[in-house]
């Protein structure tokens, strides 16, 4: 077996091993923490790209942990979706790690920085682990690691509100975990296995059973809480508002991993025909998502705190991913999964810009943004570009995924969903154009000396802004892996 064959586990192990070593590194050489994390994530990113290339040429890799065949041992399945998620996760986290070097000097007290990076790396590793696992219980374990590290990261600044937001997130997240655990138990008692592929085969005769239906309900509710789907999103706004700005960027990835878990549940554990035709689960999800998109957009408009506004915008945009799943056609799934990448890049760029603004000025209220466009040209330029992408203005990447979703809704005969997408774009435009208007044409109340953020912060922001354009013009790049991913999920 060549080393390439072991890539699925190696990609996960690199950030995790770095996390285990981080407390020791932090004890001896505090200054090296950041470089250490960046190097680990860079290696992991390169590994993920190699993995994605391998999967594209050779098809999905089934890695049998400890050498036991699937129903008995744990299996890692690096399929198209898993490899894609690994690339997305490692790319965004790499940039956030670079950005953190300067940024956390203001947000996180000195002695806690090694812990910050440790939790950061644990979060990265477990998100990748959750994306490529083929075992239901292992998915739960990965979800626990990522949940616990995100609870801690949300409240790491140690301020009162951050602590409360973290506590709220913890209680709600732990309930979600309990539901997931109960759901897994119900599936296990019915099917007698924990392996997803095995369940896929063994569940169909049991579809009439109340136990299986209850398990589906419990798992959907549990993962929806983790994904912050609209009525269950209550933890998200507080967590995003009070956490340091680098954490929401990671958290947008966390909720995407929740969406991936829903995809796995609906298409890899249950048969697509069951969730679409026998019980209208996908239809219900698409309606939930449609409501979420509209309501979250309205909430976002009414916010004055920029971080809280972006948080509601995240609730809105993760619902797009769910909408793609809910449409349930090949095109819809492709659009939904493409939006995972596009939203991660765009929202990452926005949050990092806001972080730079707060780092330099401490301003959080949108009304005080006047004149920032001239003082921080690079940051605000990137912000504007990302905002255009959020709204879905063409050549940016946001347009591509919205276009795909709208097209999927039309071809699936669900024109009303296309209307929802269009309407939400208009609502998005309202609140983003307002900010852009203030930043470029507003007049500051007092002339403060503000200059551009440090280079280690501007560089990741520019990278992400560039990605908004690159992914807009070169949407074929992610689509090469997403088209087979959607086909594999639907079993075409």
């Amino acid at each position, binding site marked *: 077996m060549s080393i390439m064959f072991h890539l699925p586990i190696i990609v996960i192990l690199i950030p995790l091993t770095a996390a285990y070593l981080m407390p020791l590194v932090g004890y001896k050489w505090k200054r090296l923490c950041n470089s250490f994390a960046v190097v680990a994530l860079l290696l992991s990113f390169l590994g993920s790209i190699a993995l994605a290339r391998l999967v594209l040429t050779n098809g999905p890799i089934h890695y049998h942990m400890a050498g036991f065949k699937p129903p008995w041992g744990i299996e890692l399945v690096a399929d198209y979706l898993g490899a894609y998620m690994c690339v997305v996760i490692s790319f965004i986290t790499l940039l956030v790690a670079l950005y953190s070097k300067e940024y956390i000097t203001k947000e996180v007290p000195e002695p806690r920085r090694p812990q910050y990076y440790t939790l950061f790396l644990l979060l990265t590793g477990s998100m990748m682990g959750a994306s490529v696992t083929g075992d239901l219980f292992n998915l739960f374990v990965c979800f626990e690691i990522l949940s616990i590290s995100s609870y801690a990261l949300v409240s790491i600044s140690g*301020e009162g509100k951050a602590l409360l937001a973290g506590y709220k997130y913890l209680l709600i997240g732990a309930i979600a975990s309990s539901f997931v655990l109960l759901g897994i138990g119900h599936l296990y008692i019915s099917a007698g296995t924990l392996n997803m592929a095995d369940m896929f085969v063994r569940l169909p005769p049991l579809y009439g059973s109340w136990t299986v239906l209850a398990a589906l309900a419990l798992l959907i509710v549990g993962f929806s809480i983790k994904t912050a789907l609209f009525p269950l999103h209550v933890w998200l706004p507080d967590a995003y508002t009070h956490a340091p700005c680098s954490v929401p960027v990671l958290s947008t990835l966390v909720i995407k991993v929740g969406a991936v878990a829903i995809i796995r549940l609906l298409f890899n554990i249950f048969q697509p025909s069951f969730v679409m035709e026998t019980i209208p689960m996908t239809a219900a999800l698409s309606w939930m998502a449609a409501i979420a998109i509209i309501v979250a957009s309205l909430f976002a408009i009414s916010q004055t705190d920029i971080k809280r506004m972006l948080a509601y915008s995240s609730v809105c945009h993760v619902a797009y991913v769910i909408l793609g799943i809910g449409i349930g056609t090949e095109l819809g799934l492709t659009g939904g999964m493409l939006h995972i990448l596009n939203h991660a890049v765009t929202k990452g760029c926005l949050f990092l810009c806001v972080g730079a603004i707060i780092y330099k000025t401490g301003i959080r209220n949108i009304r005080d943004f006047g004149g920032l466009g001239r003082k921080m040209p690079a940051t605000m330029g990137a912000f504007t570009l990302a905002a255009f992408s959020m709204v879905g203005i063409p050549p940016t990447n946001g347009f591509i995924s919205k276009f795909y979703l709208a097209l999927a809704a039309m071809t699936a005969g669900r024109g009303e969903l296309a209307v929802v997408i269009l309407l939400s774009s208009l609502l998005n435009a309202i609140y983003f154009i307002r900010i852009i208007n203030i930043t470029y044409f507003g007049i500051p109340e007092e002339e403060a000396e503000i200059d551009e953020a440090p280079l280690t912060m501007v560089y990741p922001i520019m990278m992400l802004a560039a990605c908004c354009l690159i992914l807009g013009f070169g949407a074929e790049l992610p689509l090469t892996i997403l088209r087979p991913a959607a086909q594999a999920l639907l079993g075409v």
Partner: protein
Amino acid sequence: MLEEIPLEFLLRHYNYWTSVVLVMIGLYTMIVKKNLIKKLMGLNLVETATFLFYISMGDVEGGVAPIIAHGEHATDVVYINPLPSVLILTAIVVALSTTALALALAIKIYEKYGTLNSERILELM
């Protein structure tokens, strides 16, 4: 479908019923109680109820614990299902970890606000 279930069948599931009752008690505590530590106790009730559900599912009538001495697999002995035990060992650690983190947060919150009553804290904010 439901009405065909005989009473005896319901009685045979008493472990599961208890776990359902415990989940309900725990959830109710989490929603209704204002004290943050009490909420956490409710969470622990829910979690242990889940564990009870798993372990009940693993039991087999007349079975013994799956410990096979010196590699001799006795043919007349029925062993219980070891897999739920394994899963629950992991889940217990998860529960402990969540509780530890939550209590650390609670201590910090008390230092900041001087109370653990969630409504009082919202007033103070």
